[in-house]
Structures are given as structure tokens and as C-alpha cells.
């Protein structure tokens, strides 16, 4: 798979706000470019200078270690200057509105803003007020496009394709932006998607997004190529969605017994952070032959490098702002 020549191409969009609306060609371009960055990272060929002079701001209104670090590393490996801002230390805590924050950030003339926010649509709202490129690092329960891209990259590297694969996304679909982005991406690339979980953790109209819905995990996993587990997002839950963690694990936790109905070479994924013993059995999560969980993290950096690379290709100068 090693490619010495980096793929050329452009995105039609100034921002990466979601997977919905991206074409199969654009997704393929992003994945091909990410593949090149995987090789470059593994070769440890030193820092690139592609983004020299470019300023990237990580603006996180919601806690995150994994995603923020991954974006930070991606920016630094491309030679950009990366600044981290989080809600805990900034004026956002002091009551500044999202729009004020957008205007403030814009005045600092960044080239790329990477934004995570607990409200669906907030990143899009912010993108309308700034001149730079914006990457959605997760907005509420809407989208998390780079997660879907890194999942697709990990799958493609193992299965050599996306088209025709049968993928089961399991667990808390209702609160999951990862699920929504993955559904859009996998559907666009010609994979078949099942969603598996209790009805209380399913959006009512999820079938309208072109997926098959299963409430019985043993049926939902039958014959699948990929089992994608989701974290039970207790922090987004108000009210009774599931009566108890032990009941949830009994019915929807992934263990070898439930996995046995999937294809023998089915792979297991999880966007992290994992709740061991809640949605996934530790043994399964750590199974080196089946679990892609560690590889997903590695792919994350490469995918984010590709996103930064492609979006900055659309910027005219390195002195701030696109036109």
C-alpha cells in the first residue's frame, strides 16, 4: 500500500463540518492522502514543513484528551503552530457567547480552527463568523467527521475495501455523533450498515438514514464484517434510558458469545474512551487478532494530517484567512 507520491486533489468545501454532503470521490481522496501520512509517520521521516507559518487553534468547549492531542500532533507533524484553548481556562466560562468567541478567535487570524462543542450545529454557527477553515471535532450529537474517516481508514487497511462490507454499529446510537458520521460515510462508500441497540437509545427515525435496525444484538451481529461499539454516554443522558449498567451489558455488551455469530474474521472497533464491562468485555477489547482499537488511534493522527493538508490547500496565503 505504500505510496511515494501523495495524491493530489481538492475538497469543494472550505470547512469540514460533517461527512453528510461529501462525495465518494472526496472521501476516497481524504483516505488516500491519510494512507500516505500513515506511511510517513511510520517512517519517522522527520517533521514536514507543509504548514510552516500556519496557525491552528484547537478550540474545545467540551473535554477531550484523545481527539485534541491527535489534532495537536497532526498539526505539529506538518510543521504548523498549534494553540490549544479549552473552555475550562478561557472566557467562555465567564459567560462569553459563542458568537463573541468566534469573533475573538477570528481576530487572531488563524488558518484553521478545530472546534468541539456540546451542542449540535454549534460548529457550523461558528464557521459562519470566521474567515479561516473550520474542522468539526465533534458537535453535540450531530457529527464527528474525522472519527468516521479514521474508522474507514482502519477498516480499509484490513479489508482492502469498504464497498459491500456489512458493518454493525452497536450501543448508544441516540447520543452518538460518531454513529451519524459513520452511517453517512459507510452509506456513501457502498457499505451496508446495521444499527444495534435498545430502542430507548435509538433516534426514532434512524431507519430513514438508510440503515437496518436491530434490537437483538445476537441477530444484529449475524454475518457482519465489522462490529463498531459505541460508548454509553451517561453524561448526555437525562432520565431513564437503560435501567442499569449490568442489564445493559447483559444484552448489549460485546463479549465472545455475542461475537460468535459475526463472520469469523470480523473486526472490533471502538472510538474510545471505553467503558470496560459496560459496552465491551475487556478480553474482547484487548484481543490483538480482532480488535482495531489501538490502530484507530494511530489512524486518527494520519487522517487529521490529511484534513489539515487538504483544507489548507484551499487557503490562498499563510498570513491568515481564506478568500
Amino acid at each position, binding site marked *: 500500500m505504500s505510496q511515494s507520491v501523495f495524491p493530489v486533489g481538492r475538497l469543494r468545501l472550505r470547512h469540514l463540518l460533517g461527512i453528510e454532503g461529501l462525495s465518494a470521490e472526496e472521501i476516497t481522496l481524504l483516505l488516500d492522502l491519510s494512507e500516505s501520512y500513515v506511511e510517513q509517520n511510520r517512517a519517522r521521516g522527520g517533521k514536514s514543513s507543509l504548514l510552516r507559518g500556519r496557525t491552528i487553534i484547537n478550540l474545545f468547549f467540551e473535554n477531550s484528551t484523545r481527539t485534541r492531542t491527535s489534532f495537536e500532533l497532526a498539526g505539529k507533524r506538518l510543521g504548523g503552530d498549534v494553540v490549544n484553548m479549552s473552555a475550562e481556562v478561557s472566557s467562555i466560562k465567564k459567560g462569553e*457567547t459563542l458568537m463573541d468567541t468566534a469573533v475573538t478567535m477570528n481576530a487572531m487570524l488563524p488558518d484553521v480552527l478545530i472546534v468541539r462543542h456540546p451542542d*449540535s450545529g454549534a460548529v457550523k454557527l461558528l464557521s459562519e463568523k470566521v474567515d479561516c477553515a473550520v474542522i468539526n471535532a465533534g458537535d453535540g450529537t450531530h457529527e464527528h467527521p474525522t472519527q468516521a474517516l479514521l474508522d474507514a481508514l482502519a477498516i480499509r487497511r484490513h479489508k482492502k475495501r469498504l464497498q459491500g462490507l456489512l458493518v454493525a454499529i452497536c450501543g448508544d446510537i441516540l447520543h452518538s455523533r460518531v454513529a451519524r458520521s459513520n452511517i453517512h460515510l459507510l452509506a456513501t462508500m457502498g457499505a451496508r450498515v446495521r444499527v444495534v441497540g435498545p430502542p430507548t437509545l435509538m433516534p*426514532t427515525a434512524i431507519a430513514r438514514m438508510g440503515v437496518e435496525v436491530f434490537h437483538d444484538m445476537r441477530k444484529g451481529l449475524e454475518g457482519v464484517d465489522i462490529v463498531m461499539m459505541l460508548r454509553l454516554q451517561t453524561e448526555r443522558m437525562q432520565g431513564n434510558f437503560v435501567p442499569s449498567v449490568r442489564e445493559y451489558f447483559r444484552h448489549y455488551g460485546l463479549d465472545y458469545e455475542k461475537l460468535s455469530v459475526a463472520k469469523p474474521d470480523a473486526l472490533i472497533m471502538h472510538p474510545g474512551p471505553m467503558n470496560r464491562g459496560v459496552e465491551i468485555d475487556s478480553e474482547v477489547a484487548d484481543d490483538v487478532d480482532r480488535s482495531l482499537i489501538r490502530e484507530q488511534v494511530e489512524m486518527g493522527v494520519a487522517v487529521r494530517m490529511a484534513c489539515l493538508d487538504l483544507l489548507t490547500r484551499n487557503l490562498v496565503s499563510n498570513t491568515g484567512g481564506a478568500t
Partner: protein
Amino acid sequence: MRYPDGVVPAKTPGGRGGPPVAYVNARLLDPASNLDALGGMVVRNGQVAEIGAHLAAAGALAAAGPAGIETIDCGGMCLAPGLVDMRVQLREPGEEHKETISTASEAAAVGGITTMVALPNTRPAIDDAALVESVARLARETSLVRVHTYAAVTRGLNGKEMTEFGLLAAAGALGFTDATHAVADPQLLRRALSYARTFGKAIIQHPEEPILSRGAMNEGELSTRLGIPGSPAMAEIIQIERDIRIAELTGGRLHFSNVTTAQGLAAIRNAKARGLAITCDTAPHYFALNEMALSDYRTFAKVSPPLRSEDDRRAVIEALKDGTIDAIASDHSPHDQDSKRLPLAQAAFGTVGLETLLPIVLELVHNKQLGLLEALAKITSAPAALLGLKEGRLAKGLAADFVVFDPAAPWKIEAKRLQSKSKNSAFDDRLVQGRVLRTVAAGIPIHIAS
């Protein structure tokens, strides 16, 4: 009532104490008397002195009144009763940065509305006779149009203790409502309906079960895609069906505002057929827009109840046609930028509507869904009749509150050009037909189109 530009009312033509004015060559439209004819109207002392087809031409006036009175040629344009808007949020007292009675009345004048009925969800809430009187006084001093008010069903809109219906009604409250929230407690609603009967007043109920309707938009495919918590149509159906049963138990009068769902309307249709004292209204956005207006996280289209599916929108039009929906109200809900320029889930509910009520209602006429008189009835005589008001009709001896409009004139709604203090219009950029040329209240022109 305040007069435009501070004009002293004494000598204003048409107004009290002023010389009479004749409006001729007008297409007279009075839904209450089923009048649709070319004619004229003489206005004297703030009242309609003469009206009819026999006054069509200026020459015919000699017989009707003194020679040489001021005559206004309406050029064949429509002359109808001033609109009666039965659901307006005035924001005064308490949120004057969003709207005041004065600014709302200016918007109303531009929109051809001569009577507004205010919701009690101000700060403080209108839950005491003194507050009803204070709103009336503010209106007298600052408003260009007539202002009536509802009073709260419960103190501070807390949903727990009933207000003094008798004293509030005596002070002028037209009915009782907890505004944008339904009275949830069934025992309280039962007592309120029974008790309001004593004073001949209706309970006006928001049609959504409060706990099931905590979402930010209609629950469905779009809310799933956007990752926004939804309020299901069923939340409305449940509330309406339950409340109809409680009304049945009490024999009280119950009015649902802002009805939006096919099945909620079916329940009301059925209740009416059974002879219950149930009535309802809807707002222009529920027949002119559907949930797709939110597809770009557009907070200006976030209203309560939420914009529904296309099937529901069509059902609202059907219910307007068959009379299940008695009236249309603007549901004017002004909000400043800070309340609307937010992520969708956090943004405030509501759209301004005073200046767009007439053209959006006229869409029903242009689309041949309602006749012109039928459509006008929903925003004049019908709401007036529901609330026991004399307004909303053109008849000799009644106040000369009317609007002259061109039903066909095309224009584009531009939120930033609205008179209302807040510009949160769900209809921004919409192309419409129907323009108010002149609004007259108590015989005095309060708006003349430039």
C-alpha cells in the same frame, strides 16, 4: 390610544371631534356580514357613519352627508376591518429590550392590525387585576392600536395556584392562559375550566404535553440527522385529547392555540362535532412552513410547538378550509439577537409575526385554498367573536378600525426592515403578495404606506 406623531386628536379628520372623511371607490370586505362589493364608507367621530355600495362614487356622497367633506379614493383596493390578532407577546413589562407596547403597536399598524390581544407571559406575569389595569394604562399612553390582554391561569405561570379569575375578568382580562406552556395538572385544569365558566371566559391552552415536548424541533428524520432532541407530534395529540375530555367533564370553554398536527386537529374536529365548546387557532408559520425550514440549524424557524412535517402542514390548511380551525393569530414572539444567535438547542422559541400576518394569510387566497372573505374572517371577525369583542367588523355605529390593502402587490419580506424591535422573522427573504396601504384606528390613519 396614542396617536401617530403625537398629533392632537381633537381636529383630526375622521377622529373624535374632527370633520368626517369619506373613503370611496373601495372593495368593501366585511366577513361578519358577508359583504364583498365596491362601495364607500363615511367615517365620523372615530366611528363608521355610513357604509355601503351606494357610496361607491364620490358623487353619491352628497346624499349621504354634508357636501365638500374630505374624500379619499381607494382606487378599487380592498377595505376590510382592521385585523384582530388574538395572540401577541408584547414583552412589556420586563423585557423592553425585545419589544415594547409602543414598538409592537407600530409593527401592528404596518401590518394592518388594529387590535392585539397580549399573552400574560411578561415579567411579572399578568396574574393580578392591578397588572391588567397597568397594561391597559400603558397601552392608552403608548399604543397606536387597541390592546387587550389575557390573564394567567396560575400565579406567576407556576402551574400550581389559580389566579383570581373574577377580579381579573372584571379588570378586563379576555380569557385565561399560561401562555407558552400548557396547564399540565389535570385537576387544576378541571377547576380552571369550571371556574372560568362562571365569568363566561375560555381557558386558552398551549397544545403540548410539557414533558414529552422538551425537544427543540419536530421529532423525525431531520431531527435525527441534525442530532437535535425532538418533540414528537404525539405530545400535542396527547394534550389535546386529554384536555378535550377534561373540558367535557366540566362543560367549560376550551380554546387551543397554535394547533399544528393532523391528529390533534382530527380530535378537535371530532369534539366540535359532538357539540363541545372547543375552539382553536393556528399561526401563519404552521401552514406556510414545515420542519425543513430548520435544516440549516436556522434558529429563526424554532417555534413552539415546532414546525411539523409536510403532511401536518397540509392538514392545517384542510382544517382552515373546513372550519376546524376558527382563527389565525400571528403568535408574535419577539427575541433579540442574543436569544437567537445560539446553537439550535439553546435558542429561544418564536418568530415575530405582526407585519407578515396579512400577506401570509393571503397566500391561502392566492393558492385558492380559501376565499378572500373566508381568509379575512380568520383574522378579523372570528377571533373577535371568540373573545367577545366588538372589533373585527365594519358596521354603522362601530369604531372605524380598518385596513386598506392591495391584495396582489408583490414584495419581499426583509427581517431587517421590520418595525418590530426584534427582527427574528421565520419569513425573512420570503416573496409574498399583499400590501397594507393604510391602517386606520378609531377613524385616524395610523399607517400610510409610502
